């Protein structure tokens, strides 16, 4: 999905009074145990997300095999306990700890080509201001 098309889709899905801060691509790695079990087929368990940061909270849009937006989950900032952030050379690891007890570990690029939806510094600062980021 192209950036403009994606932006339009995301803008349409926002509720009244909610404004967009930024969005970026994120990837959930497969479980390493699966690699030993099913080999290269484990790559099919990779999950791709678009993380959308708004004034109300964080939207997680999961992409399907064809790059279309599939499963959508929204968490208010009060529903996120903390975010564990580790910055690497090219990617930033973001581990979300939700109030429901579940965790979600995603990796997002902060460097790369122009067309890649990167994690911007302004989004990180906004997250730090609204959620406990460690």
């Amino acid at each position, binding site marked *: 999905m192209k950036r403009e098309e994606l932006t339009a889709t995301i803008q349409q899905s926002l509720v009244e009074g909610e404004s967009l801060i930024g969005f970026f691509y994120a990837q959930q790695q497969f479980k390493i145990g*699966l690699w030993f079990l099913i080999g290269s087929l484990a790559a099919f368990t990779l999950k791709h997300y678009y993380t959308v940061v708004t004034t109300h909270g964080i939207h*997680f849009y999961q992409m399907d*095999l064809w790059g279309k937006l599939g*499963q959508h989950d929204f968490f208010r900032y009060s529903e996120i306990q903390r975010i564990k952030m580790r910055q690497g050379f090219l990617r930033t690891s973001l581990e979300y700890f939700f109030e*429901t007890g*579940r965790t979600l570990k995603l990796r997002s690029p902060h460097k790369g080509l122009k067309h890649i939806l990167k994690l911007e510094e302004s989004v990180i600062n906004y997250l730090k201001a609204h959620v406990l980021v460690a």
Partner: protein
Amino acid sequence: MILFLISLLLYIGCLLGYKPDPKSLKDEPISFMENFSQVKASLFTGIILIITFLVTTNFTFLHVNQTLFSYFGLSGWKGLTLQLPFQIVTHLFIHVDVIHFLPNLAAIGVLSAYERRVGASRFLTVLLVSSFASILSLFFYLEEAVSCGISGGIFGLAVAYFTDHPGLTLKEWLLALAVFVLLVFVFSASQTRITFLGKIEIDHIAHVLGVIAAIVYCKWRPVSIQQNDFKSY
């Protein structure tokens, strides 16, 4: 017998031990019983195959008994009349040796991912439709041949895993089919093996027929969005 126990425990352990995260981030992690109900068809299919293989190999779990093989394997067409009608069903559960059997078992285990998505009844229907369609491959062989194994059904399940999604456009459907074909070329190289039963060839025509049957079935009876809306995959 050791190989049998290892296969059985590994198969059950992997299917029940692996619990995928629920699709929605807001859902609670699935319980043991929920996990069991999501893979019950592939679990029992695998167990039936393991036990049948054990019995038909005289409890050695290595090579099929030659008498049982010729009795239960699909032993060709005699002027369009099947030699023994029950062979239509029994040949699906017969495997020549452990090298023939274990990849099929592993494939059913992996394709439990399809059952998690669409449910047990559709999983079994696609498996049966593809398996029975693959029988027609015997028409393509001039010489007398004995056919056995459930690989036609497995190929049908594999193509359904990629293409059986609700609301796919033609372009997306073709892309999914291309991914499947690529995987088939990677994982299913042509092989001829010599065993105690003689020359064994992979019945690629049966695989293709299984794939075609699964595609036709999935197009004829497309999966509904509600059916696809399982808690996890």
